[in-house]
């Protein structure tokens, strides 16, 4: 049945996304469009509940509510992965900034006056 194909493909796709450092195509624009479509779909589903059941039946799911649940589950996992990756990227940015700050604010020691500048092999 179609729903099984869709769900397995989604799960595998999410698995692959999890391994990557950067989700390809994860642009703000697509997320906004997706969000708006989600809002529209929600409004339609509330106003015409029979529609969800019809669509569900078309892909092989008995109840409309089950289809909505599947969509929710997949959306949630995608969101969790995408957010986790954004946090990872943020941490990297913080690290880079901290390093640059440390380098910019360096205080150079008076190494010039150290006794020996060339290390000599010890007598062993």
């Amino acid at each position, binding site marked *: 049945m179609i729903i099984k194909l869709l769900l397995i493909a989604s799960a595998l796709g999410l698995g*692959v996304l999890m*391994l*990557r*450092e950067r989700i390809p195509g994860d642009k703000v624009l697509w997320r906004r469009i997706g969000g708006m479509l989600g809002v529209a779909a929600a409004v339609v589903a509330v106003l015409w509940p029979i529609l969800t059941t019809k669509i569900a039946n078309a892909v092989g799911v008995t109840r409309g509510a089950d289809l909505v649940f599947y969509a929710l589950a997949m959306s949630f996992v995608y969101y969790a992965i995408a957010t986790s990756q954004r946090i990872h990227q943020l941490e990297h940015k*913080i*690290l880079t900034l*901290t*390093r640059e*700050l*440390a*380098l910019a*604010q*360096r*205080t*150079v*020691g*008076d*190494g*010039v*006056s*150290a*006794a*020996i*500048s*060339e*290390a*000599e*092999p*010890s007598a*062993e």
Partner: protein
Amino acid sequence: MPSKQACVVVPVFNELATVERTVIDLRAHFGDVVCIDDGSVDGSGDIARAAGATVLRHAINLGQGAALQTGFDYVLRFTEAEYVVTFDADGQHRIDDAVRMLARARETGVDVVLASRFRGTTVEMPRLRGLVLRGGVWFTRLITGLHVTDTHNGLRVLSRHALSRIRLELPRMAYASELLENIVPNGLSYLEEPVTVTYTEYSRAKGQRNSNFVNILFDLAARRLRASA
């Protein structure tokens, strides 16, 4: 002052008790001592500065690997040093071992000199620590194919060429494995030198937890998965 000297990089995180002695002893043998103050809250950075070290301060604690990488970036960007010696601030390492390892690097021309306490001497090393470390050695030999006997020793000599090829990005202490994993793929030459590692009550209390190896394994696995995807 000769510009092509060696630079000692010392990561420092709350080592108030030992940092001053370490910097002073190092400066007696090396001209350029750089301390990376990795977000210490006990004033270690100020002590190191007063003792004459060049100090780079991380505003937040980033971990020893990140501290070393900052030191490496400093050396590459602001000095002409041909070699970097990494040295711990907690009193476990011996200055004469560092001096000898640098001399070996210079005479043999290798890119990386690693220190081995298991070929050398350990003083009062806790038994469990020894077992965990040996486990780490076995694991690292498996993963990297390197013929090494001590994989988590903070005392190393790295040539400028090696510095330019190594990038440490793993958090916590997984950087040690990361560093070794960079050697073979970049065609770096290496050798191991026996050294003495002394465990004092201070360094035992401060050191990594033995259970940290679980974190290290996770960090390494995560990075490999990302790299292969």
